[in-house]
């Protein structure tokens, strides 16, 4: 059970990381939040968070499986997460606004 939860957390972490990396791009930010795009500070913060989330995902994978297998799980989780984020941006971009929240609120306010 612990392993299942850890892997689920790894997946969520990969997906969140990819969502942040996507939001750091002007076009995708506009799809999600509208407006003029993220500020330079927001881009930096989103990229950092994205990278941290992907690293956390790797760490979670390593905690569950032998490293020789964990790297495969992690790399594939990145692919799945990227596809999930891409299709969310296509059909339900507003769902990703939660990931943009502090910065989009700042931009609106």
């Amino acid at each position: 059970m612990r392993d299942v939860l850890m892997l689920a957390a790894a997946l969520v972490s990969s997906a969140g990381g990819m969502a942040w990396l996507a939001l750091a791009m002007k076009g995708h930010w506009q799809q999600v939040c509208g407006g003029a795009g993220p500020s330079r500070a927001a881009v930096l913060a989103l990229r950092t968070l994205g990278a941290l989330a992907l690293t956390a995902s790797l760490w979670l994978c390593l905690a569950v499986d032998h490293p020789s297998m964990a790297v495969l799980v992690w790399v594939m989780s990145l692919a799945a997460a990227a596809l999930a984020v891409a299709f969310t941006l296509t059909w339900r971009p507003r769902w990703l606004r939660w990931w943009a929240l502090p910065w989009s609120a700042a931009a609106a306010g």
Partner: protein
Amino acid sequence: MFSSFRLSMTWVHTWFGLVLGYVLMACFFFGSLSVFDREIDRWAIPETRYEPQPMPSFDKLLLPIFKAIEPRQESYDEAQKEVHGPLPPREKMVAGEFGAYTTHRDPVLSMFSSFDVPNKPKNPNVDHVHVFGGVTIDPRDGTAISDDKLKIGSRFFYPLHYSLHLHWLDLGYWIVGFAALIMLVALVTGVVMHRKIFREFFTFRPKKQTQRSVLDLHNLTGVVALPFHFFFAFTGLVIFAGIYLPVTGPMFKAQAEAHEKIEEERTGLPHDPAGVAAPLASVDAMVVEARRRWAERDMAGEVGFLGVTHYGDANGYVSVYRAGTDRVTLTGQGIHFRASTGEVILEDPQPSTVAGIDDWLTGLHLQHFRHWLLRWFYVLGGLAGCVCIATGFIFFVEKRKRQHARSGSAGVRVVDALAVAAVTGMLVATVTMLVANRLLPPELPARGDWEERIFWLAWLLALLHAGWRSAPMARAQRSPAWRAQCLALAVLCVAAPLLNWITTGDHLFKTLSKGYWPVAGLDLVLLLSAGIAVLVARRLRHGEAAEGVEQENPEASHA
């Protein structure tokens, strides 16, 4: 020849990708199915629908069965062609080697034996020719599973993805190997061609015109799964490297022989039989000892492979390998015993770095580990590869169809018909085979051969249908074969689980409530595929209707 590097890469990507794409489509799709080959076997052979079993007792159950295995007729005939003089009669041949392999997903056990051939081989580079025999049993009581029942997953879809079932001159292996090489080339050239690999990393715009949206999908599925595509094409080549570059045989015969001699000295495992008869000690006791030693190394586990070499000879030895359930590597930690006494000759040391990497690359591709998430990720990666190839075909056609229609060229019409056969036709053939599996009489002799014939026939019919219905392509319109085959697929995908219910009584409520995933999973995937096929068919109908409007009123499309 080309004005820029990028243009020359585009040329390579387009034309090599187009020609080998048809082969790669089959490799990726049937490779994806192979991730669940054992589960497809359970669906196809209902009498084997029970829980996976550990390796049974060798002394009590396996040895008598091994001794009764006869050489397979095809293998015997094949060997006869390769040696001088007539072979000994088939039923008199003596088995020199036994092996049994199982994984955590196998309720049945595959056993094989290899028979010594005294005749001199015709090929001077070959030392010995062997004849093989095998049987599949229920490990709970040793009953044999009839060879007439085809393991559709592990004996048909799985070999299809690397050999295309084309055995003449090993042609299938060479075609697939070349296709894998081209896959690597297509990945590199694709990255070179792609102008906005990072900027469009997450981009898919289905509402844009078809040519743009299929290119988005092509780039998306190619780029996000790039490591998967690269590693599977590459490791596929590594696994069959011995066929493509036979360094241990014909290429460097003297070195290979010297290496065998050094190995024999290093390991103490005799390469040749002594020619002196000797009994076989209790193998079960050896298994107990092997498990004790694994547990001592903090790697307790089940037996994955059990083998006897030089059976009945004083040089005989027994090898016990641990199943690689929790590792990427298939099996490992081999422990070898003297067959006549049961004493340990050798405990495999830690593999060298190079051997370890090789084992990892091979295991990564063959994936017999217990990790359901990673297995599904592999299916996702494989299907992403299929989408990437299929959208490549469609992009090729979309880009050229108007120009070809104007000039009267049949080029895209042929490419499109072949693409229909390679994409929807392949799916139709696959599910037709499952339907046939449930409809053919249970005791039909050579039932598996009929299933295979029906598969190829269905695929051929799909190709003919695609060619026959391709006329609208000449007017730069979409071929209606795509939609017709999607609908056929939807019907088949509903028929297969229904027939499974009628013929076996294992309907989804039962398999789901019992948690019997091999059958429940396949039924669910079939129903899901039916739903997707209907959605795609509806979308294609809208597309065709829009094209009709455009044809009648050319300005409408620009409005």
